[in-house]
Structure formats: C-alpha cells, structure tokens
C-alpha cells in the first residue's frame, strides 16, 4: 500500500497554470450549468451527521482527500447531503449495514481507536496519529475491523469521498479536465491535441508514482 508514503511537492495547484473550468461555464447547457455551479455555492447546513460525527467525519475526509486547510472542496457537506437524502450507490455488501448506518458506526469506531491510541476523539488527535489510525484500517485489507471487513469500510469512505471531491470544478482545475461539454463538444481529440480552452500540463514528465516509489 502506498498510502501516505512517497510524499513530495509537485506543485499540484499549478500543474495547469491559468486553467479555470468555470471560465467556460457560459458554453454549458442550462441544466448542466445549474447542477455544477450549485456545487460552488455556499454549502448547506448539515442534516445527517450529529455534532460528534461531524467532527470525526471532517477530520477523516480531510485526510482522505488531502485537504488540511481552507480553501476546501466541501466534501463533508456533499456527503452529508447524500446521506440525508438516502442517495446510495444502489447496493450494499451483505456484511455491511446500509450506508448511512455504516457511516455512523465506522465514525464511532474511529473515535474508539483514537481514544485507545491517543486518549482523544479522532478529530482531536494529531495529524500524524490520524494518518496512522487510518493506515492501520487500510492495511487490514479484507480482515475485520470492529467486526466489519476493513476493505469494505475503506471502499465506503473512499467511494463517497472521491465522488464528492472529483465532482467539483476546483478538482477538475488541478487535473486539467474541462468538465461539462454540451453543447460544444470537442473538435481536437487525439494524442497530444488540445482545444483552445485546454491548458497543457506544465510538468509533463512529473509522474507522481515513479517519483514516490
């Protein structure tokens, strides 16, 4: 597992200099624009998580999405809204509770682990301890963690977190993806080709994996 190892500074925020997905919003169809721009509006108040769960979930999601400080993609609020609406992926593992309960249960288990290791709730643990606690869950793979298959817990957390994070225009900016493409479409598909509104990678040989290895 690579997990948090192999850290390096890649200039993540400036890989596609000047690229701004929202600058093209005038070319999007109205229905799509409403859906996407809504994600950039002030985040709604939480409905699903209790206060204790909110603190724990915020710390967990900051770690999973690598967002230690503002400005953040509001992953916590997006997941809370999904869970409040019961918007699941349409299935659950037989050995897991339904998603909402699974979130509540696993957050309480994280707090229990933190109490044991650091004598605090997860949210109050030092970053290095939070990382270690999460790495321990990931390393269990298909073994059990508090009676649940750790891999299924990990899948729940990362699935919800990545779906929220990579639905946000800020996330698209850092990966060079232009987002909605209707009704304009693309005219220059092919290796090495770009549309006028796409920005070339400023660090094309900067393969994060090999450098991290």
């Amino acid at each position: 597992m690579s997990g948090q190892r192999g850290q390096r500074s890649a200039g993540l925020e400036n890989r596609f200099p000047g690229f701004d997905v929202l600058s093209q919003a005038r070319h999007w169809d109205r229905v799509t624009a409403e859906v996407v721009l809504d994600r950039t509006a002030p985040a709604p108040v939480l409905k699903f998580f209790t206060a204790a769960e909110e603190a724990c979930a915020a710390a967990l999601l900051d770690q999973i999405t690598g967002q230690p400080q503002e400005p953040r993609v509001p992953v916590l609020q997006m997941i809370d809204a999904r869970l409040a609406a019961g918007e699941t992926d349409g299935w659950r593992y037989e050995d897991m509770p339904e998603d909402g309960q699974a979130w509540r249960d696993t957050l309480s288990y994280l707090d229990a682990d933190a109490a044991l290791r650091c004598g605090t709730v997860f949210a109050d643990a030092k970053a290095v301890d939070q990382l270690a606690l999460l790495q321990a869950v990931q390393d269990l793979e298909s073994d059990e963690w508090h009676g649940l298959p750790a891999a299924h817990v990990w899948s729940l957390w990362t699935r919800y977190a990545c779906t929220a994070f990579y639905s946000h225009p800020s996330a698209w900016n850092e990966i060079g993806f232009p987002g909605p493409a209707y009704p304009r479409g693309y005219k220059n598909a092919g290796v090495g080709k770009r549309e006028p509104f796409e920005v070339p990678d400023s660090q094309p040989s900067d393969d994060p994996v090999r450098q991290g290895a």
Partner: protein
Amino acid sequence: MAGVRSRNESAWLLPNDGTRTNHQLRTDMRRFADEDEIDLAIVGCGAGGSVLLQRLARAGWRVAALDAGPFWDPDADWVSDEAGSHHLYWTDPRVIAGTDPVPMGSNNSGRGVGGSMVHYAGYTPRFHPSDFMTRSLDGVGADWPLDYQELRPYYAEIEQELPVAGEHWPWGDPHGYPHRPHPVGGNGEIFLRGARKVGITAKVGPVAIANGRFGNRPHCIYRGFCLQGCKVNAKASPLITHIPDALAHGAEVRADAMVTHVGVDERTGRATGVHYISGGKERFQRAAMVAVAGYSIETPRLLLNSASRRFPDGLCNDFDQVGRYLMVQGAPQTAGRFGAEVRMYKAPPPEVSTEEFYETDPAKDYKRGFAIQTVSPLPITWAEHVAAQGHWGRPLREYMSDYVHWSCLGALCEFLARPENRVTLAGEKDRFGLPVARFAYSQCDNDKALMRAAQGVMEDILHAAGADEVITIQRYAHLVGGARMAADERQGVVDGNCRSFAVPNLYITDGSVLPTQGSANPALTIMAVAARAADRLIARRGSA
C-alpha cells in the same frame, strides 16, 4: 438502409430543431384503462421491452409497457456531468454477497424508459456462433435452444435501426456495419498503435452511435459523456430508437409505474395482468399476455415476489431455476501512463475493440476467452482506479493530477454460468414493502484465469504503445441470465421463443434469458432476441 424508415420510423419522429424530445407524440399517446384487457402488458422499457413493444405495436397489437422509472427528456433531465447523472441508475436497495460480490447501480443497472442502454457505453458487438453451443464445443456453459443462424437476420435488422458504426468485422460471423467507423481520439489511437506493434488485430467499432445524421438525430459531438446519457441523441438507446415508433403505432408507455407482482389465475395458472403502484396507488392492468423485461436482477425478483398458491416458491419456479445462472463479465481495466497528453475524456469511451481472444484457445489452460475495448473513465471513475492502487490523501491528488496522460483499456471476460450465482429475496424491504434482491456471486477458477490472461494482454498492448507504467483495477461489467432459456423446464425458465414453460401466456424478453454471454456487450443480443420473440408472437397469433 432504405428499408429502415419503413419498418422503424423512430429517428424521423424526433425533433430536428435542436431539441431532443417529441413532446407532442407523448401528449397524444394512446392510454389504456386498467380494466381494459390489453393484448400484452410489458414490464420494463429497456433493450428487450422496448423492441417488443415497437414490433407488436406495428403489428396492430394493443400493448402497453410499464416502467418503474421516468419517461426521460434528455434536454431537461440529463446533464453533461458525472455525479449529476446519479439518477440514471437503479439505486433502490440491493444486497450483494458471495465470495466476489458485484457492485450494482452505475455499473450495470438502468432506470426509466430506455433502461441501461441510456448509460451503456454504446458497444454493440454480435455474439459469435460458438456462444450458442459452448457446452457442445467446449464442455462449459450451456447450449442455447436456438443457434446463431436463427438470430442472424435480427442482428442485421437491429444494427440498421440503432444504427451501428464500425469497420468490417472479421470475428465470429464476419459482417459489415451500416455506418462507417468513427474517427478515434487519444485512447483509441493508443490502442491501435499498441495492438499493431504486438501483432493483435484491433478494429474501430462496433458502436451504436450514428456516424452522420440519421433521420433527425444529429451527428455525435465527441464530448465523452456516453455513460451519462446522450444529450445529443447521437448514441442509440430505446428511448430514441424504438419508443417513438411504438407510440406512433398506438403503444402506451406508462412511466413511473412499479410493477409489484404478476397476476395469476389460481385455477387456470394463466397470467391475468400486472399489479403495479403509480402515484402511491395500487392498481392492476388487465392483459391477455404478460412479458417481463426487467433485466437480470428485477426480473427474477419480480417472479419470486409473484408467489401464489399455484406457485408457492415464486412464479415459474417449480424447478428452482428462477434467479440462477446469473452472469457478469470479468472486466479488469488496465491503464497506461504516457509522456504525451492522451486526454481520453475526449471522444466517446467506446472506440476500438479486439475479439482476437474471444474463442477457446486449445493451447491455454482455460476455456472461452475475452474481448478488449477502450473505456476512457471520467474523473470520478478514474479516482476509483487510483484509489484501488491504495492511494489516498495528498498522493491520491497528485496521482489524479496526471489524468491527462493516461490511456485506459477494459476487458470483458466470459465468466461461466453457475447455478449458485443467483438472485434470491433478502429480508430487507424497499419502500413499497417488497423484499429486495440479494445477488450472490462467486468466481470459478476458469473465471480467474481469464481475468489474469486479459490483464496480461492489456499490459502488453499498453507497453508496446509506449506506456512507462501500467495499473489495473479488478471489476465487473454487464448482467445476463437469471431466467434463462433452455430445452426444458428443468434446465431453464423459458423456451427459445422466450415463452415461460410454466405459464403459457407469460414471456420473458430481456437479458435474463441468455444462457451464455460470450465476451460481448449484451445490448444488441438482448434486442435481437426480443425482436425474434416478437416475430414468433406475431406469427403465432397473427396481426390483430
């Protein structure tokens, strides 16, 4: 091609003013009363149900199709966005189990009129002749009660109606396509380049996206959001390829109507219609005949939820066949990293495929084979690939920032039908109080060997194309089986004409009747089987 419009006018019934839905056709739609005994009630408006509806409406039958989901309008209901397309998938609760549980939802389950073809990639290969007799040829799987030749004319018909674009196809029963192949984007280029270098034949297509205008359907704009519903009306789904013509010929589509169980006369054992819930009210549509087309999870679930005194273990389940032999394809996806920018999100994900490894190779220690195709995941799906490598936190973000450099191929491995891979009813209930489906899946050794072999070939292709690094994610694609056709009632649920063995006026016309799956995306075959069943019904009963 001249004949297409004369037998299916759908593409000409759509608007040509830049909007995508013929609202007048829906407003003027015929509406049957519940107490009116119609000739046929169809459950589900996807690949199978829609083709059957259109064919029978043309033959003058009084026919209605009920669908649990909405009657989509691509302009108002669909977005050019990944997360915003969540409502296209069937997300009612389902429980997955077995040693290799298969995620549902966006992966394989559609909702609303058009079914899963609303969000399928668009690949429409035919099955090979060998797929219909794998038991005889290879000692695995099952033989169909019909052979390839019986389906062949229906394949050709449907390919014209969608229509399908692609190069001349050298595999299986060699054939051409009505539309020329599309130009390829970065991902397709990489596949073609790598395949050429390692000596594998790869071809552009077959893709159910018109190349050029087709009727009033416009040209593809290569925006890459095929899996999110085509806002252009370029990619085929029954919503635009069969439903308009069905409505024009007097069929009814009753959307937002969840069928809860099939009515059966306890004395005669015949189907009497369908019980459904619409607007919170329980209703019953009388019908002389019922066709179930809810796909491989919901069709078995509906039959099991339709137990009665005559069928205490579920409708058509006297021999414990309902829900069994459900199949998915092993679908590992291998991606390669290139110094140049590939930007695989531009151009439709379905571009290029090879079926060179489709048939049993006597030199290998496994039976049957696999196909390889371009897949081109968008960012959220791509994050799954990266997270599957164990990355999270800042390293995940850095890895993701490399997105434009990656090319991604997917395999479809022919997993074998096994009786224990099946749908049963879970203890949990949905909001209508109906038990939800529990779907158990476990791979056999042959399945696992195919996954490994396919991954190896994809890695070879990508390395040959110049990839300096490759990663693979293990996943599954498609559903077929669960109410399969067979020679008799002890081996399956329906006969070769899709008529159930147990109830003479009950048909099943969807992917659940397929006894094998090959390494082909199933949509075209599901439509062809439904078109053939329609012809048999019409011949049997005559045009009304």
